[in-house]
């Protein structure tokens, strides 16, 4: 893939490092001389120095780029870079890093659908950790409203005497598998539970709290 990165700060640097290591072609657009120097010394000729406008994007070969990622520390700059790339140079995929999560609806409204906000990610992690002390989120799916979670059954779990089919599971949750020691048990209606079973469940984010009540006292 050919990737154009706008902004060679900390995020841009590590993105470049990662993408280059995976064998992708990368060009970084960066204004600051010291940052450009550091990137060139480490990754070779990957830098175009200057401000991200259409002329520089053309010089970077944006017409053949597969994706542009804007990761400067200014949301406004990232927005403009993405819009120029998308609208004028028809880059098929643009991704914007946003500092202030309140700007997300604006980006979406202007057609930049893929935004990444570290503030949002950290807040979600904290929130999930806070509401589910024993249920560990493993993977967020969709737009984050569906997730795969892991939970370990305690000795006093109210689920222990019951068959799976008798569990009051929330309607939008499915048990995916049960890990018992080094065995994997595929859950059926007749499955029973044992203490220390590790359960993987697919659930809506709303269902997490209810799942907790099914398996924990």
């Amino acid at each position, binding site marked *: 893939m050919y990737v154009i990165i706008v902004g060679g700060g900390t995020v841009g640097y590590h993105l470049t490092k990662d993408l280059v290591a995976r064998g992708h072609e990368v060009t970084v657009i960066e204004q600051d001389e010291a940052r450009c120097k550091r990137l060139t010394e480490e990754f070779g000729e990957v830098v175009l120095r200057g401000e991200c*406008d259409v002329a520089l994007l053309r010089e970077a070969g944006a017409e053949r780029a597969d994706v542009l990622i804007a990761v400067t520390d200014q*949301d*406004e700059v990232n*927005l403009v870079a993405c819009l*120029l790339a998308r609208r004028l140079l028809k880059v098929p995929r643009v991704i914007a890093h946003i500092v202030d999560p*309140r700007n997300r609806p*604006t980006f979406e409204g202007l057609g930049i659908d893929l935004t990444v906000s570290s503030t949002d990610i950290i807040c979600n992690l904290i929130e999930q950790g806070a509401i589910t002390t024993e249920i560990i989120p493993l993977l967020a799916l969709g737009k984050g409203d569906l997730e795969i979670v892991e939970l370990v059954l305690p000795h006093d779990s109210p689920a222990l005497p019951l068959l799976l089919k008798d569990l009051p599971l929330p309607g939008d949750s499915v048990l995916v598998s049960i890990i018992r020691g080094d065995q994997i048990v595929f859950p059926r209606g007749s499955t029973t539970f044992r203490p220390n079973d590790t359960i993987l469940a697919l659930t809506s984010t709303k269902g997490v709290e209810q799942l907790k009540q099914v398996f924990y006292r």
Partner: protein
Amino acid sequence: MKVLVVGSGRVGSFLARHLVGHGHQVVVVDRDPTSFKMLGEDLVVERVAAPATGEVQTTFTAKTRIRCVVGSGSDAEVLKTAGIQAVDAFVAVTDNDYVNLMAALVAKELHHTARIIIGIINPRRLQIARELQIEAICPLTLGAQSMFESLVR
């Protein structure tokens, strides 16, 4: 007409006062509340609004009757508090060209404001504004142009 001015610096406050002097209704947005002093000496904090968005507050200059909203001009919520839905014209003249561009995009594409104009400090960015179909003026270029004309006339 109703005009929303983003940026209460020299250009913004001059423009706001001028518009009010000509009988127009003006709201000014700036993230620095001290900048509203340039609108008039009689500045009073009228109410603190929109607690959900935190930084948004509204002040008022009594004599000049300019409503002032504290917040970033590129923040869509702040612009809503300032009443962007109902304005006839939108001006963005902060000292950050990209804030002006983003604010104008919000006005143009999300609120379909009839008349939009922004100030651009770095003349090279006039091209960016043109490409995003935002009308822009660079005071520096205009100033230099008129100096040139006086010199060679």
